C-alpha cells in the first residue's frame, strides 16, 4: 500500500511522525486516564444496584429511579418495576448519550482514545478515516435529541436537590445536600452551555436584530459555551463525587455531616 498522510508522495520527505518538541502527549494521556477511571467507576456503580439511596439523597446515577428501586427512592413511580437488572441502566442512556454525542467529549475521546489525531500536527495511526459520515458515528448528529433529554434529567436532578433539603421531620442541610446542589449547578452549566442549546436558543437565526430576546439568550449561552469543556469536566467529577458520597453513606462507611 502506498504511503499516505504526511508521507504521501509529493509532500516534503521529512519522515518523522511529528517534529513537535513540547509535551503534546500529556493532554490526551490525562484525558485517557481520567475518562477511563470514570468509565470503570460508573460501570461498576451502574451495575451494582445498591447503595444509591440514603434518605433524603438519591444518587444521580439512579435518578429518576424507575425500576425495582429501594424503598423511598422512586419519586416518579416504578413503571419498569419488573426490569431484572440495575435501575440505573434504564435511565443512564440519556446522560450517557448526551455526553457521548457532546461536541466537547467527541473532541476529547477522538483525540485521547481513538488518537484521531492524538494532538495537532501529530500523525494519527489509522490508514482510513471517514469521520462522522457513516454509522455509528453519524448518530452524533442526534446530539440535540439527547440535549432535550438532558434538560429533563437536569430538571429531575434539581427536584432531587429540593428533596434533599427536607426530611420527614422538616428542614435539613447536610454535606450531601451541598454535594448534590453543587452537582446540579454544574450539570445545568454543562447542559446550558451545550452547542446544540446555543444553536436552538438563537444560533440558528440569520437575523438576530429581528429577535432581540433570543439574541440576548444566545449571547448569554455563547458566553457559557466558551467554557463548555470546563463544565464537562467539573460536572463529570461532581456526579461521581455525589454518587460516591451517597454510596459511602449508604454502606455505612461514613456518616453524614449535618449543618442544619
Amino acid at each position: 500500500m502506498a504511503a499516505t498522510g504526511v508521507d504521501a508522495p509529493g509532500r516534503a520527505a521529512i519522515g518523522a511522525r511529528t517534529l513537535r518538541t513540547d509535551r503534546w502527549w500529556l493532554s490526551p494521556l490525562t484525558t485517557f486516564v481520567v475518562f477511563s477511571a470514570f468509565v470503570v467507576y460508573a460501570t461498576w456503580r451502574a451495575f451494582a444496584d445498591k447503595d444509591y439511596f440514603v434518605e433524603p439523597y438519591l444518587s444521580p446515577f439512579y435518578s429518576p429511579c424507575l425500576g425495582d428501586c429501594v424503598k423511598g427512592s422512586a419519586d416518579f413511580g416504578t413503571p419498569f418495576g419488573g426490569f431484572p437488572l440495575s435501575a440505573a441502566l434504564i435511565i443512564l442512556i440519556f446522560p450517557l448519550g448526551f455526553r457521548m454525542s457532546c461536541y466537547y467529549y467527541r473532541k476529547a475521546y477522538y483525540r485521547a482514545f481513538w488518537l484521531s489525531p492524538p494532538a495537532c500536527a501529530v500523525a494519527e495511526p489509522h490508514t482510513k478515516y471517514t469521520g462522522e459520515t457513516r454509522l455509528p458515528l453519524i448518530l452524533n448528529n442526534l446530539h440535540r435529541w439527547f440535549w432535550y433529554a438532558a434538560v429533563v434529567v437536569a430538571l429531575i436532578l434539581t427536584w432531587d436537590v429540593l428533596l434533599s433539603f427536607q426530611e420527614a421531620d422538616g428542614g435539613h442541610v447536610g454535606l450531601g445536600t451541598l454535594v448534590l446542589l453543587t452537582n446540579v449547578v454544574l450539570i445545568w452549566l454543562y447542559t446550558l452551555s451545550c452547542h446544540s442549546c446555543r444553536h436552538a436558543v438563537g444560533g440558528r437565526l440569520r437575523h438576530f436584530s429581528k429577535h432581540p430576546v433570543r439574541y440576548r439568550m444566545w449571547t448569554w449561552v455563547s458566553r457559557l459555551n466558551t467554557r463548555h469543556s470546563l463544565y464537562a469536566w467539573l460536572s463529570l467529577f461532581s456526579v461521581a463525587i455525589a454518587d460516591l458520597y451517597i454510596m459511602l453513606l449508604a454502606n455505612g462507611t461514613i456518616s453524614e455531616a449535618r449543618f442544619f
Partner: protein
Amino acid sequence: MTYQLKMRVWRGDDSGGSLQDFAVEVSEGEVVLDAIHRLQATQAGDLAVRWNCKAGKCGSCSAEVNGKPRLMCMTRLSDFDPAETITVTPMRTFPVIRDLVTDVSFNYEKARELPGVELGPRDADGKRRMMQVDVERGQEFRKCIECFLCQNTCHVVRDHEENKPAFAGPRFFLRYAELDMHPLDTHDRRALAQDAAGIGMCNITKCCTEVCPENIKITDNAIIPMKERVADRKFDPLVWLGAKIGIRHKDDEGRTEM
C-alpha cells in the same frame, strides 16, 4: 543583544530533501522569518520561502516551526530558549515545491467549488440595510487571512491524502458558515456543505482553531453551528415534521437550496 541561533531548515523538493543545520545571527525582537531572511541574504541565496507583508496580515509565510503550524512572521524568537535549535519545515499537508514553499492549489480548487454570495435586490434608495448584530458573526469569519494553517493541520487531509477530493476543510466551512449566516444571501448551501464539502468528515478535534493566527473560533463559531444547521435540515424530527405539514422556518425565507 544578538546571538547565534541554531536552526534546522528543511531543504529539498518533491524528489526528496532533508533537514539542514545552520547558525545565523539574530537580534532582540526578531521573528523566525527574520532569521530565514538572514539565511537567504548571507548563506543560502536560493532558499525558497513564500512571504509578503511580514505583519501577520497576508497569510503567506505559513510553515511548521518545531512541528507546529505557524506564521513565520508572527513567531517571535523570544518565545524560544536561545540555546534551543529551531526546526522549520514546509507545511506537511500540501505537495512541496521547494524548500519551505508548498503547492497550496488544493485550497484554490476548493474555493472554486463553493458558490458565492447572491444577494437579492437593493432597497428602494439604492442602498442595503443590515444591522451590526447580524453581520458580526460573518465579520469574525472574514478576518480569515487564508494562511491555510487550518487546512494544513486538519488531520482529515493531513493524514489521509485520499480524503482531499471529498473534503473542503476548515477554511471553507468558515466560508459556508459566513454565507449561511449572511442576512441577505438567497442561497441555502446546507446540502452542499454536507455532500460536496464533506463537513461530516470533520470530527471537531479543534486543531484548526488551535493554529488560527487570527484567533477565529473556527470550530465553536463556524463548524459546529454549520453542523447544527445541517442537522436542522436532515436530522431534526421537529423540523422534518414542520416541513411535512408546511411550516417553514421564517428566518430562512427567500432562500433556495443549491
